[in-house]
């Protein structure tokens, strides 16, 4: 039994306080360092040859001006690699946080961001555009996907609303039902579309950060700057919600209101991620699990660490995807699936006795 010790932060003059498990700063530090290393390794790896030192110099702008390859380095790092890696990080952070929120809102460790049919809705919108339209304007794709996601989440929430309350169980089941029919419609599009469009649609559906640029980074950063702090600040309500509706009410949490609010944040995060990078699975499911084991379930510390972990995970997955069958690349969504399954098998193996 680990003796739980907290680091508390309780300023005298200010009207708030919080505490987090003492493992949190360690975890955050180690994850940050790991993240940095993976970042440099990821930028370093690729068809164009560079050394890690070159990478660091280019990033920090300390590359000597008369270096022969200076312009190429800058091009490769700043135009091609850095944006996509940053997108991977931001998407991972968004998905992981969204998953953690979902798991706490529904009080179910098997919940994940797409559970309200969000990913299926985004997928249907995107596939309809790719397959249904001639020469679809790809710049619009993220917006379309986002719209599809929000509409689906709203529909599921509306249907789950019964006598002024939405039970998590009903939400999940209706979400699953919606996802099934949306998936069938996606299949319909894929069956009848032009084969080349269909292959493009498949890649989007699997999730990929190929070709993502600074526009995507800007959009994601904007969303995350708004949504992540809102999520982090709701830590206390989340802790209470996790204990059950009645208990939370006893603590003075406005259960329905908070749940709706947190759902909106979770869906917003998931939709932003899916809109930019397609439907990447398993990060939102697995990252919170692992983080909970590392730093405990108290949300004050758990949520930021989850975001960091999810981001690092996706950057790593992207690196693996580019490395495994170089010069071709495996879409990032497949790598995360391949990480997620062994994780579950490991869980199964561990729990077989109980």
């Amino acid at each position: 039994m680990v003796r739980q010790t907290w680091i508390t932060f309780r300023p005298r003059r200010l009207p708030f306080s919080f505490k987090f498990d003492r493992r949190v700063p360690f975890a955050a530090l180690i994850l940050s360092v790991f993240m940095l290393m993976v970042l440099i390794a990821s930028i370093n790896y690729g068809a164009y040859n560079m050394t890690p030192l070159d990478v660091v110099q280019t990033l920090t702008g300390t590359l000597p001006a008369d270096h022969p390859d200076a312009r190429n380095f800058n091009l490769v790092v700043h135009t091609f690699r850095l944006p996509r890696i940053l997108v991977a990080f931001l998407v991972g952070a968004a998905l992981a946080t969204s998953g953690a929120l979902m798991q706490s809102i529904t009080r179910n460790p098997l919940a994940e961001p797409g559970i309200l049919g969000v990913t299926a809705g985004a997928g249907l919108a995107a596939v309809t555009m790719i397959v249904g339209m001639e020469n679809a304007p790809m710049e619009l794709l993220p917006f379309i996907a986002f719209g599809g996601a929000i509409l689906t989440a709203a529909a599921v929430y509306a249907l789950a609303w019964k006598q002024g309350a939405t039970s998590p169980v009903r939400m999940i089941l209706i979400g699953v039902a919606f996802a099934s029919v949306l998936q069938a419609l996606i299949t319909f599009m894929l069956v009848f579309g032009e084969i080349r469009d269909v292959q493009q649609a498949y890649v989007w559906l699997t999730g990929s950060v190929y070709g993502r640029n600074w526009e995507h980074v800007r959009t994601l950063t904007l969303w995350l700057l708004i949504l992540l702090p809102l999520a982090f600040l709701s830590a206390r309500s989340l802790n209470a919600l996790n204990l059950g509706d009645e208990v939370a009410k006893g603590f003075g949490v406005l259960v329905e209101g908070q749940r709706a609010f947190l759902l909106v944040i979770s869906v917003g995060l998931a939709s932003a991620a899916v809109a930019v990078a397609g439907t990447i699975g398993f990060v939102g499911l697995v990252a919170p699990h692992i983080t909970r084991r590392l730093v405990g379930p108290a949300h004050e510390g758990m949520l930021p660490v989850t975001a960091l972990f999810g981001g690092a995970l996706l950057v790593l997955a992207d690196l693996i995807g580019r490395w495994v069958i170089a010069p071709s690349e495996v879409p990032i969504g497949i790598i995360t699936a391949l990480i997620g399954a062994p994780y579950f098998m490991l869980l199964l193996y561990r729990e077989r006795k109980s």
Partner: protein
Amino acid sequence: MAVQARQTRIIGSRALLLPGLLLSLGLLVLALLWSITLGAADITPEVVYDALFNFDEEIFDHLIIQTVRFPRVLAGLIVGAALAVAGAIMQGLTRNPLADSGILGINAGAAFAVVMVAFVFDAPSLSAYSFAGLTGAAVAASFVYGIGSLGGTATPLRLTLAGVILTAFVSSLTTAILIQDQETLEKIRFWTAGSLAGRDMPIIAQTAPFIAVGLVGAMLISRQITTISLGEDVAKGLGQNTVIIKLIAAGLVVLLSGGAVALAGPIGFVGLVIPHIARFMVGVDYRWIIPYSALLGGILVTLADVAARVALRPQELPVGIMMAVIGAPFFIYLARWKVRR
């Protein structure tokens, strides 16, 4: 999670159960015949009757019926019966009103195995497909039960979520293969949506034995399934060996769904919808639910296939998509109004 129990059933008197079954059988035959008459060129019932009983090689319509339509309709019947009974067993076994082979990821697992076979081998034999379907279904069933049991008993909600996770994982892998290989993609696109198009007698002959064994087995243990549907403790208290029964039932589910997927691709919702209708009609005794499910399943898939062929004439819709369009609203209805808490 509990479903509001229906105290009444439509067929109120027990004496009417058998006649009801025969009536369903009659309806099934009618549906089959109707389905045969429809197609690119509609054929009159008299010609259909002749083709089946006074087969004349020279007549073109007779050939069409014997080689194309009759096998397809037969496949629909077999698939419908198999999926419906598999769903009934799953719902009885897991006491989960929202169980079916699609939701629990068993269809996805079987489909992935078949896609693998198509990808790896150039000209796979038909038996390779059936074998793949069964293996995929078996592995998926064990996985979903395992994941659903993590950290506690496999409650209906956990099983559903485990099914979602498994389906997501398996679909990623299937997509990975389909992205790599355009050839396999072309071959198999239509099939991945669940389709009866092009099903002929050889593939039916390959998969029908497994499904037949599954159906017979289901009838034989229908009494035990009724017992176990009352609850694990009740069943044990009545002296039933729940472990063996669960294993046998799981094996039957694998035979039925694996065989159905190998035959017609992953078709969902049949196993979800039909047992509820059967329960509505005959009550909670699985000795009646299972045969009724088999017949009603055949009727449903046959009618869905008719709808799929007619809806976007002359283009043909995969029957799996039609089933999703029919089944999903039913699923939503169940989840919203019939699930307590």
